[in-house]
């Protein structure tokens, strides 16, 4: 039984991998570009899911991390003249230091103050980035000249959309795998325990303040890596990435897909970016209303998001079946 389930899981993963590997060859260039972006946005929302869905802290300032990551990459490439890989490393380092320092400050607060502080920090960064035009380019942003990246002995052009797709897919998949692994480890599971019952977690020997800080930092690093991918995909970045609008999107995508599932943010980002694209072309003015209606429907019908509700339903079915089996045996 358990073996069969495991086999099924591997099959599912293999199919998923095949679809994503084959996608650029059967998608039109336009949709290929959208899918590349969805992978990046999904990774960004995954960062939010780590702190919200897994830890129970509502960080409404996620835009700060994607902004820091994207400028970490763009400034390193522009001013230090480094390549794509070093640029991503810079994005990681900048967001690591930044989220650790912010985490030291905000994880001391109770939940309401935590939300307010994360918003304030992202707003301050937004105004700074908009006004320090010499450094950030403000809303005009920075346009990068980097056109190539190396992978082992091979060199690829960032103008090659297929190569770019595979690059983004590889980076996102690797980061996602590490996050999944982390939440299967004793340390990752302890973070989930903090969300479930902080007092009990503390009393059975876990340093809950430290766990929240670790989760906050990891969340920022993941969102920052997505930020590093933004200029890779767009050849540019701009200060608007710091705007709270993007924090709101991370929340929306995660809640639609299923908070705490880790897969949900990707699904939510995929659905919402697709809907935005389709609907906004003929319903520009009504699109925000549609999003609002959709959110209400999701919260009423599937409060745990699409994947969360599906999981719950499957577990319920499995429980019913088990009880049936037991009844039959007796």
């Amino acid at each position, binding site marked *: 039984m358990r073996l069969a389930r495991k086999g099924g899981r591997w099959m599912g993963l293999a199919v998923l991998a095949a679809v994503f590997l084959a996608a650029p060859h059967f998608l039109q260039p336009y949709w290929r570009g959208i899918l590349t972006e969805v992978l990046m946005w999904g990774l960004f929302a995954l960062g939010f899911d780590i702190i919200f869905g897994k830890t129970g802290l509502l960080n409404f300032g996620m835009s700060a991390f994607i902004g820091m990551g994207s400028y970490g990459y763009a400034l390193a490439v522009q001013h230090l003249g480094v390549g794509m890989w070093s640029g991503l490393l810079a994005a990681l380092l900048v967001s690591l230091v930044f989220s650790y320092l912010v985490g030291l400050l905000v994880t001391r607060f109770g939940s309401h103050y935590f939300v307010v502080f994360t918003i304030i920090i992202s707003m301050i960064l937004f105004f700074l980035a908009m006004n320090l035009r010499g450094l950030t380019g403000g809303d005009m942003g920075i346009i990068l000249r980097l056109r190539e990246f190396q992978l082992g002995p091979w060199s690829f052009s960032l103008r090659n959309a297929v190569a770019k797709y595979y690059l983004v897919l590889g980076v996102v998949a690797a980061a996602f795998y590490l996050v999944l*692994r*982390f939440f*299967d*480890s*004793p*340390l*990752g*599971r*302890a973070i*989930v*325990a903090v969300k*479930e*019952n902080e*007092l*009990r*977690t*503390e*009393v*059975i*020997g*876990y*340093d*809950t303040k430290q766990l929240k800080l670790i989760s906050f930092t990891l969340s920022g690093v993941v969102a920052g890596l997505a930020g590093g991918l933004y200029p890779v995909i767009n050849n540019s970045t701009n200060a608007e990435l710091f705007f709270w609008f993007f924090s709101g999107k991370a929340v929306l995508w995660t809640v639609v897909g299923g908070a705490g599932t880790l897969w949900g943010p990707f699904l939510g980002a995929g659905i919402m970016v697709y809907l935005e694209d389709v609907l906004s072309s003929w319903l520009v003015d009504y699109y925000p209303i549609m999003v609002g209606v959709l959110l209400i429907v999701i919260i009423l019908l599937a409060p745990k998001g699409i994947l969360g509700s599906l999981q719950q339903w499957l577990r319920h079915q499995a429980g019913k079946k088990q009880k049936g089996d037991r009844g039959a045996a007796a």
Partner: protein
Amino acid sequence: MSELILETKELTKNFGGLCAVGGVDFMVRSGEVVALIGPNGAGKTTFFNLLSGVLPPSSGRIYFKGRDISGLPPHRRCRLGLSRTFQKTSLFPELSVFENLRLGAEVGYGRRNAFWRKADRDPRVQEVVEGLLALVEFQDKAQELTGNLSHGDQRLLEVLMGLATRPDLLLLDEPSAGLSPAETRQLTRQVKRLSQESIKTVIIVEHDMEVVAELASRICVLHQGRILCTGSLQEVKSDPRVQEVYLGRSA
């Protein structure tokens, strides 16, 4: 005489003008089962919160295994071997029974900080959890969500959670709260067996005198934040001050 495992000196907790625990000198020797009784509001739970570090004391000191732990946060006290349960059940309702105990056992027997290995693949921790489940015949409930357990089962799990971290001293805060007489008897049997088998030192807060009589080797009566008297059940029962507190002046 076995060695002292816990000692408090002049331990005090004030909430504004209210003195919940007032200058308590208390000691427990290794291997003892001490019952803490007293009327509602006597300060029993506050005393536990001070011992486990959930509340900081207003003044006074707490020594555990000879070490001053008065300023340590709860998780540090737990790692030193001081564990507690709650009067109001406090578990992880959305996690399985197994996962609840694994989280505790990881601290006592595993590597709680490991971030590279899979949590479900530590044979030592698995063994400990399975042992705990077997104690109360919970093997077939291991994968159930804790929130779906009956109240009685949750109370049992609450006690197991206290044991999972490998404590040397276990604080049980009214383990029988809300249980039927039959469930209380079962729980008492389990706790007695646990305390005998693993020679745990236990402090138990309890209202049920049958449970107290069954388990405790020494009884300590708390009243208005102060220790009224200490002794065997007979000594405590015949103490006029205790009768006054429980039955009022007229008796």
